[in-house]
């Protein structure tokens, strides 16, 4: 994404929700394109690591330990970003707690935790950041989801429901906020891994099934993220785009 068309220079981004992959890889992608990045999630150690990677790109980074399932913490997070950066041009919402278990064994607690972490967090973040973006009369919201927002896989009921919820939230906010200059899009990731997974026989089965015969690396979401965050996408909203190694397109 070397072109100036996609430059995020002078922009400020908030990457929120997940410290497992996305804080780092989304943060770095946006920083590479020139944005300063605020990173908010629960895990402080990983947050600092992600911030370090952003700074290595020569951009400003701040970390805000936040439990996004708590609306008041999210509100404070937004206030802090605005206090430090002046505005929020881009929000990447990446709440992504993975969980799979046979449906009959899913407890009330499991269900609530997945829905709270993945869906209610998105509600809190979109509401708090959206308010700020409406004042700015411009904004980019990108929800980082899984392809399981649209498709089922055995044992993933709670996770699929949570992702599907954020996808529909995306489509509604796109319509509600288009007139405020805010675009809202979602990226659906396929099977992702930071490391080679070839051990378990089930994983082999999955590998054979994937058209590209490999997992995606979280850094492969970066270019699309930058594109959707850039000034070239004023007319591009409400879409669900896949970075999935073609798993969604094949029969």
């Amino acid at each position, binding site marked *: 994404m070397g072109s100036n068309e996609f430059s995020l220079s002078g922009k400020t981004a908030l990457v929120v929700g997940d*410290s497992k992959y996305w804080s780092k890889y989304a943060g770095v992608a946006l920083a590479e394109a020139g944005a300063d990045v605020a990173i908010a999630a629960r*895990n402080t150690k990983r947050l600092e690591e992600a911030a370090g990677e952003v700074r290595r790109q020569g951009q400003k980074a701040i970390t805000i330990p936040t439990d996004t399932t708590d609306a008041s913490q999210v509100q404070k997070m937004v206030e802090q970003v605005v206090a430090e950066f002046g505005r929020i041009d881009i929000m990447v919402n990446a709440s992504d707690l993975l969980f*799979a278990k046979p449906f009959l064994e899913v407890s009330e607690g499991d269900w609530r935790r997945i829905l709270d972490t993945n869906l209610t967090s998105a509600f809190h973040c979109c509401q708090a950041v959206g308010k700020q973006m409406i004042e700015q009369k411009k904004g980019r919201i990108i929800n980082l989801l899984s392809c399981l927002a649209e*498709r089922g*896989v*055995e044992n993933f009921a709670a996770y699929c429901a949570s992702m599907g919820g954020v996808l529909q939230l995306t489509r509604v906010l796109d319509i509600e906020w288009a007139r405020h200059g805010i675009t809202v899009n979602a990226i659906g990731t396929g099977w992702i891994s930071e490391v080679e997974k070839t051990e378990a026989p089930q994983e082999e089965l999955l590998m054979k*099934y994937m058209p590209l015969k490999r997992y995606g690396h979280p850094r492969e979401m970066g270019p699309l993220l930058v594109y959707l965050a850039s000034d070239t996408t004023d007319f591009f909203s409400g879409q669900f785009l896949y970075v999935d190694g073609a798993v969604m397109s094949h*029969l």
Partner: protein
Amino acid sequence: MATGNGTLQGKVVIVTGGGTGLGKAAALLMAKEGADIVIAARRVNAIEQTAREVKDLGGRALAIPTDVTDGKQVNSMVERTIAEMGGLDILLNNAGIVRGQVPKQLWELSDEEWRLGIDTNLSGTFYCCRATMKHFVDQGHGKIINIASGNGMRGSRGDYMYGTAKAGVINLSRVLATTFAQNNIQVNCIAPGFVDVRHMQPEPATGEVTRTAKFIPVGRFGVPNDIGHLVLFLASEASDYVTGGLFPNDGGGLAGGVAPTGYAPVIEMEED
């Protein structure tokens, strides 16, 4: 849905490709509901056999040898239907060549092979819709049921013509549904999954998951009547408010598709 109640009493139906498989199963189910059936396909013996079986069920039947890729043949088939059967109410576009992967490289495909694949599976459906639509508009009602495929919704390796044509059938159905909705004409599409047309057994064998069908969530291939019953619903007045729909009937396959059937990991929530 109760069957055998004469839901389609007095209705005239054209079934293209009705000599075997899905078309035949649907034709016989509709005949049981009292419909009169016109079977239009190329294979004379097969369509005459279906016609005999329809008559055995007490319905009127007509076998009209037709190559649906020829618009003129289609026109005269429809004219003859209306003349001899006294009307036309329902069209089931089922004719086509089921062929997914082509045993050739893309760059080896000739213009003729491309056209044949598109003509049989898409143009034939268009010709039949074109030939019947004016009649439907004039009489103020009509139903068209187009057989598409999951291959028309997702890509399948090396499936150049079949999948592309079926995708065309899906959108043609939507266009026709939209255009003729106000004329009380319903146009719907069925996307069958893997249907084993070699076995005409009326009811599926349940409970047994065969090894070869393991990739289908319900664990078995479809049988022609799986599709036939959906045709019956879309042909009957039960579906009078249903138009422009796309109905997969595939044992659950399209609901998944990001992991092989049977892939069922257990993943604990990661503690912070």
